[in-house]
């Protein structure tokens, strides 16, 4: 095992952040000579499991608050360093071309909607938001039986892209990846805003650098890059 | 019958190539091939059986042309209807003795069942003294029992002719002479042509209506 060099910073980030973080890491390295950012992408809960079992991580960026809350409860993070750095929106999408024209969540109970897809609520934050939105207006019991549960947002997106389902819940950033093949029907109202938290890991050998990276995410130039990938300011 | 044995063939293994080049014809009914070890006797029998394809020549038993290079005839092994005892027996390891013997009687897609009895099979099991070991697997047989099983398998399906490659070599003298009698009786009964490879003077005397002596792949000296 190679011990981490003094200037190595390991950042564990949710897969949905991968494109944006690759660009950001390059910028950060340019600004901090001798610093090498090691990016580790996986599903948020897999990242949490790794950190729980003692993986040598310095910064953790999760796609939802729940996972970060768990990390906080287990005292894995430095609570003072926790910040929300981007905001995302949940949208309902339909396939292109020839998808249904849906105007509101109520339209999902139309008979033409044979299947709709969302992330599995037990494991995928986007699914939790979607289910909550449907429960809010009392449609969930009627729709549950036509719902396909995907393992992650990307899989949900694929089903819509391929026309296997008539509608799906994904993040706006995901929908932006396939602008030619899916259309955003409308934004889904979520109770609380969808924000992505980031925090330094407790006991990291690089506390200063970790803080610097977290601040760097909030900087205007970083926010501009993030906006380029469809994320909004928190 | 008449046997036409005109063939050229070659087999090679690494650096060494062995050439077979025979031109012989006989009208005898029973033929013994002999000659030193490695002379090409077994290869000749394989060519007759359709397991070795000559590069040229003509093979015929009686009226049946088995192979004719110029005429483009090459009867596949399964249509030659010959009873062949391999020098190393080639018993089927997944079948017991009785099933091995019955193998050729049933041309379909299924092997003879373990318990099935066919009078022809039982006849040969008795004649060759295999009744006691009929339910044994080949790998539990003694050398002589293996040889007799191979012999029974070749004899049972009334072939057009018999090709026997040293079929008595692993038998004791008493059994050997019983087998010879048994074989002769069968040949007389069915008027079966025979091509026998043997080193045994007794076999030569008894079955060698005509004999072919081979050495180094070619005809040496007809006794």
């Amino acid at each position, binding site marked *: 095992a190679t011990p981490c060099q003094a200037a190595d910073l390991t950042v564990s980030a949710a897969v949905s952040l991968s494109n944006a973080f690759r660009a950001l890491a390059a910028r950060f390295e340019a600004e901090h000579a001798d610093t090498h950012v090691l990016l580790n992408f996986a599903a948020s809960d897999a990242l949490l499991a790794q950190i729980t079992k003692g993986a040598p991580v310095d910064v953790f960026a999760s796609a939802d608050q729940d996972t970060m809350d768990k990390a906080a409860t287990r005292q894995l993070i430095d609570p003072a360093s926790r910040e929300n750095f981007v905001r995302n929106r949940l949208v309902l999408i339909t396939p292109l071309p020839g998808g249904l024209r849906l105007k509101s969540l109520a339209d999902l109970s139309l008979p033409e909607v044979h299947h709709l897809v969302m992330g599995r609520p*037990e494991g995928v934050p986007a699914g939790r938001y979607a289910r909550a939105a449907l429960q809010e207006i009392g449609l969930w019991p009627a729709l549950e039986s036509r719902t*396909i*549960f995907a393992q992650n947002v990307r*899989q949900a997106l694929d089903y819509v892209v391929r026309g296997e389902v008539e509608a799906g819940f994904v993040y706006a950033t995901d929908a932006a990846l396939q602008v030619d093949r899916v259309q955003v029907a409308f934004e889904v109202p979520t109770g609380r805003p969808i924000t992505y938290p980031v925090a330094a890991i407790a006991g990291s050998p690089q506390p200063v650098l970790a803080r610097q990276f977290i601040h760097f995410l909030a900087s205007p130039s970083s926010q501009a890059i993030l906006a380029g990938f469809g994320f909004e300011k928190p | 019958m008449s046997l036409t044995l005109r063939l050229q063939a070659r087999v090679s293994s690494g650096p060494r190539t062995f050439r077979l080049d025979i031109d012989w014809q006989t009208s005898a009914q029973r033929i013994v091939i002999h000659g030193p070890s490695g002379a090409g006797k077994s290869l000749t029998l394989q060519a007759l059986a359709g397991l070795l394809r000559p590069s040229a020549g003509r093979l015929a038993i009686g009226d049946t042309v088995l192979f004719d290079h110029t005429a483009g005839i090459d009867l596949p092994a399964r249509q030659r209807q010959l009873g062949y005892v391999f020098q190393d027996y080639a018993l089927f*390891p*997944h079948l017991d003795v009785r099933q091995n013997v019955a193998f050729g009687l049933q041309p379909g897609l299924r092997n003879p069942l373990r318990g099935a009895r066919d009078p022809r099979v039982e006849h040969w099991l008795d004649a060759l003294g295999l009744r006691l070991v009929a339910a044994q697997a080949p790998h539990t047989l003694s050398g002589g029992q293996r040889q007799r099983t191979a012999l029974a398998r070749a004899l049972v399906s009334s072939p057009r002719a018999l090709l026997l490659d040293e079929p008595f070599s692993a038998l004791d003298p008493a059994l050997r002479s019983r087998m010879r009698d048994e074989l002769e009786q069968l040949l007389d009964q069915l008027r079966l042509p025979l091509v026998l490879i043997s080193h045994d003077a007794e076999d030569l005397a008894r079955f060698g209506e005509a004999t072919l002596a081979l050495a180094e792949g070619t005809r040496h000296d007809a006794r």
Partner: protein
Amino acid sequence: MDGALFQLAWPALTLSLRVAAWATAINLLLGVATGFALARLRWPGINLLDAVLTLPMVLPPTVLGYYLLVLLGRRGLVGNWLAQHFGITLIFTWQGAVIAATLVAFPLVLKAARTAFEQIDPQLEQAGRVLGLNEAAIFLRISLPLAWRGILAGGLLAFARALGEFGATLMVAGSIPGRTQTLSVAIFEAVQAGEDTLANMLVLITSTACVLILVCAGRLAPASPSSRRAQ
């Protein structure tokens, strides 16, 4: 097993077994045929073909599942054709899961069968020819029984692999509880949701079922006769 676990695990288990059994059966047919062809044909490119047919092992199942989706989906080449001509949809059905599991486990049977057929003493097949059998009979009466032990070993691996398959399955069949949610998918979801106890219970169930089946199926091959010399 308490009621809730039973309600989740039982349909998942039966579905898993059904999918794995179908996948194994199909693979035995396909793998034996292809393995025999690879073992007997003397083409120069045969090893290349073998390597290419091994590729389903090399690709991450999720990726394989993605390609399957592209192919079998409603807008996919094959999927479209099937839907138009036969009204068959494979996506989100257990049949789709069978296809995914079959593809993933195929190289296991193929390699095992090829190796087993290559080990057969060619003289035994020749003896069959001399005894008047045609090639089909030789295959069924000599080659297949002699290769059976090796093929079965590959088949058992394929069964286990099909049972454990979830990456490609998930992609093609979705994860509809009681309909297309296999045990492996359920385990994965339990782990993902942090329900460790449930995950452990499900792992225990899969493992027990699998061990039982492997042990029983292992008896389908005779212990020694075909594996020992005869001459």
